[in-house]
């Protein structure tokens, strides 16, 4: 079925902005019946906490929510691989009738008796029906903590209770819960990296930059995190926030409760990566945490790395300049970085959408793109299709559900989500990103798209 402007749902009209209509409506529930690309509260909580490598993540509910989130994120670990297993209470009909709390307690007991290595930290995710059937998950967790002397933290994330963003918040609260008993620590010179999930090892790239500059990284949240490292987070001087969508809230709370200020950063693209490294160094200097050597070194480092990566950009630019990009990602901050990155390559962003973008982020987006660029909140495939075709996009940057859509439309694709093939962050990531974009846009496969193959 061909989609025309007329079958954009009326309720959705204010979630779409172009030059005729500035100011987008966002941060609201999806419309019933739309084929939305959005997930739920549980999903938000789960993706943020899952990379905590040595935690036991027990999903309390029917089996689906555990199945669909079993080892789905390419978050890498330098230590435990525990988080790559799936634990759940697999609730059955009798549990729905008589309540699932008994089974949850039994599941924790079984884990404590038999699991190897012995649990230090357990997260209990309560899914949609747990509240409805009246399980007191808080009480079960409290009892387990008292019985075993370990941390058992409830994450009450029924899918219907809001958007994915609310799930991020719940995850952040759970992380705070891990830190709280360790709040009285002496501060030391060093940073925490928030909102980086170490997909394809990206966090390690960023971490190495700071360590090379003489800035210790104390805790990483949550990519490659462990219980031990999370408990040390309160001692940091500064938090840096990569994925603001999921972690700005945590940064706010840590600022308030633990007295750790934060800066927002983005390590996607030359401009944002350089600026972010310098911003962190300057913030540490401004806080009196280091001498002026570090800001100076940060500038030298950024300049040297930029000089190294520019030839790569120059090499590929002729093949990419003039192409048009569509962006559909989770958070607004990432979209902003991607627009800048495409600008560096001479690629114009013609459609940009996010699942959970905030008002201020959409304002930045609209300042970066041309007046005729389409900006969408919580887009669905129909809208993505319509605007990609209308605007003649050559490549779509998105996640798993958008990949087949792009291919079916004959549009190139780059996964900038859980399934990214290579690290896309930092200076090394710039090269990978350009190569991926080039590989997909300039793949020989496109010549076979027509009825007969080009000879």
């Amino acid at each position: 079925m061909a989609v025309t402007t007329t079958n954009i749902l009326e309720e959705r009209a204010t979630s779409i902005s172009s030059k005729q209509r500035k100011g987008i409506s966002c941060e609201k529930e999806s419309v019933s019946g739309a084929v939305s690309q959005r997930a739920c509260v549980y999903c938000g909580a789960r993706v943020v906490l899952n990379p905590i490598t040595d935690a036991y993540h027990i999903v309390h509910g029917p089996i689906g929510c555990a199945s669909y989130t079993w080892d789905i994120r390419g978050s890498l670990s330098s230590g435990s691989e525990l988080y790559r297993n799936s634990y759940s209470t697999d609730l059955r009909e009798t549990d729905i009738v008589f309540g699932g709390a008994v089974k949850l307690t039994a599941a924790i007991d079984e884990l404590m008796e038999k699991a190897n290595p012995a649990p230090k930290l357990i997260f209990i995710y309560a899914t949609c029906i747990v509240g409805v059937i009246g399980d007191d998950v808080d009480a079960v967790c409290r009892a387990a903590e008292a019985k075993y002397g370990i941390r058992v933290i409830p994450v009450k994330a029924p899918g219907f209770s809001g958007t994915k963003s609310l799930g991020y918040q719940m995850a952040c609260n759970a992380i705070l819960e891990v830190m709280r008993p360790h709040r009285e620590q002496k501060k030391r010179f060093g940073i925490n990296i928030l909102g980086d999930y170490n997909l394809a090892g990206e966090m390690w790239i960023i971490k190495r930059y700071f360590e090379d500059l003489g800035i210790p990284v104390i805790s990483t949240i949550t990519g490659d995190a462990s219980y031990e490292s999370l408990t040390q987070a309160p001692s940091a001087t500064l938090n840096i926030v990569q994925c603001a969508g999921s972690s700005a809230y945590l940064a706010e709370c840590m600022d308030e409760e633990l007295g750790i200020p934060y800066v927002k950063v983005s390590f996607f693209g030359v401009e944002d990566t350089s600026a972010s490294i310098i911003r962190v160094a300057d913030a540490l200097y401004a806080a009196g945490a280091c001498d002026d050597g570090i800001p100076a070194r940060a500038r030298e480092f950024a300049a040297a790395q930029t000089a190294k990566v520019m030839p790569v950009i120059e090499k590929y630019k002729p093949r990419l300049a003039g192409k048009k990009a569509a962006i559909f990602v989770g958070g607004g901050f990432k979209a902003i970085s991607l627009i800048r990155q495409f600008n560096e390559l001479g690629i114009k962003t013609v459609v940009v959408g996010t699942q959970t973008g905030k008002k201020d982020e959409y304002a930045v987006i609209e300042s970066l793109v041309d007046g005729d660029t389409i900006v969408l909140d919580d887009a669905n495939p129909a809208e993505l299709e319509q605007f990609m075709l209308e605007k003649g996009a050559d490549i779509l940057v998105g996640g798993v559900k958008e990949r087949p859509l792009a291919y079916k439309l004959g549009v190139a694709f780059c996964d900038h989500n859980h399934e990214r093939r290579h690290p896309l962050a930092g200076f090394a990531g710039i090269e990978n990103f350009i190569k991926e974009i080039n590989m997909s846009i300039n793949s020989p496969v496109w010549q076979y798209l027509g009825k007969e193959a080009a000879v």
Partner: protein
Amino acid sequence: MLDLTTSNVMERTALRVNPCKTCQPVGAMYAALGVANCMPHSHGSQGCCSYHRTVLSRHFKEPAVASSSSFTEGASVFGGRSNINTAVKNVFDMYDPDIIAVHTTCLSETIGDDLTSYIMDMDLPEGKTVVHCNTPSYVGSHINGFFNMMMGFMNYLTKKTGTPNGKAAIFPGWVNPGDIRELKRIATLMGVPYVMFPDQSGVLDAPMTGKYEYFTGGGTTLPEIASLGDTEQLIALGEITSGEPAELLQKKWKVPHTLLPMPVGIAYTDAYVMALQKFSKKEVPEELEEQRGQLVDLLLDSHPYTHGKKAAIFGDPDVVIGLTSLCLELGIVPKYVITGTPKDEFTRRVNALLEKYNVEGCTVKANADLFELHQWIKNEPVELLIGSTYGKQIAKAEDIPFIRAGFPVLDRYAGPLMPVVGYAGAIRMVEKICDALMDRQDRDAADEDLEIVM
């Protein structure tokens, strides 16, 4: 270091570790995608629909379109009636399917939404249909969801005009589009006019055309589903997946059925061919005879490399039963055979197979999980692992050759286009099995033992 499993087998009653199943709604969604111009609709929170679409997309490498009622806090208190009403209106307005196939979720089941009455009260546009089925996530597995959706369609749509239509109905069970194409090819070769229900071929294996369509034109059509009541005979494949829908068609419209295992391997494919022959009363054509002969020839040629090898097979009940049968035909010992779906019938059927081949010392279990399987393998290893992508970690930890089959396969391409069923599917699987075993032999061979001719 993915190997956290210890050999000390851990008895569990409450904790599920590394499941070998998922929940009902995704099965319902997959079944509904096999109906032409149909929008599968998930009546629950948005995450359910998103997860199901994601896993289907990851398996088929195709778009999987479905809509959601997008439950909010309010719906969970006051019920989902207004959500489904809004959703149905929006879906018809915007995507214009012929039919919306609603399935429930754990949430809408628990709060007690009565879809039958909601749908009855709907004011639908001319010529449009809404059907539903109940798919409580806490009962059975995704396999139940699949057959419940089939029965949902049948309850709403099937009729009996009184005039038999001269066709056979074929229920393929939960298989890939490549399997359905093979089942159809065989039925056509056997000269049997049929209605295949459901039919995801042409939907989830649709070709690249440069045009994106929600509804590809593939799938069982609504008149075809309606005509199931007029078919003369039903051939239902996959005893566990297709059993209940077959019973329903018999009870509702007195259509007699032959319930067969998923036709994997020689014996089970023979059974399918014989059932078709019983219907058409025609000779088995040379083309099929020839292919069967090739398969037997292949088994004979390769048996020194397969005979006596020990395998672990896991996945959905019907495909596992089929693969177990094929393994036994190859002389492979199916040391561990498990499914995550809680069905005692599974163990009965597999044990009957083992008895038929006089094979002892195997462990068969339904309602099992992969952690358990891994522990058994630690205690007594196998030489081959067959199942979904989730076997990957076990295969790597234990260094076992691994063949992907069943659902979901998230980490390889082309699988859904190819058959496992039929003689062609068996030839393909034998090639995979031999490749896996013989590649391993080559890899492990000392330089002086590496053989050019095998």
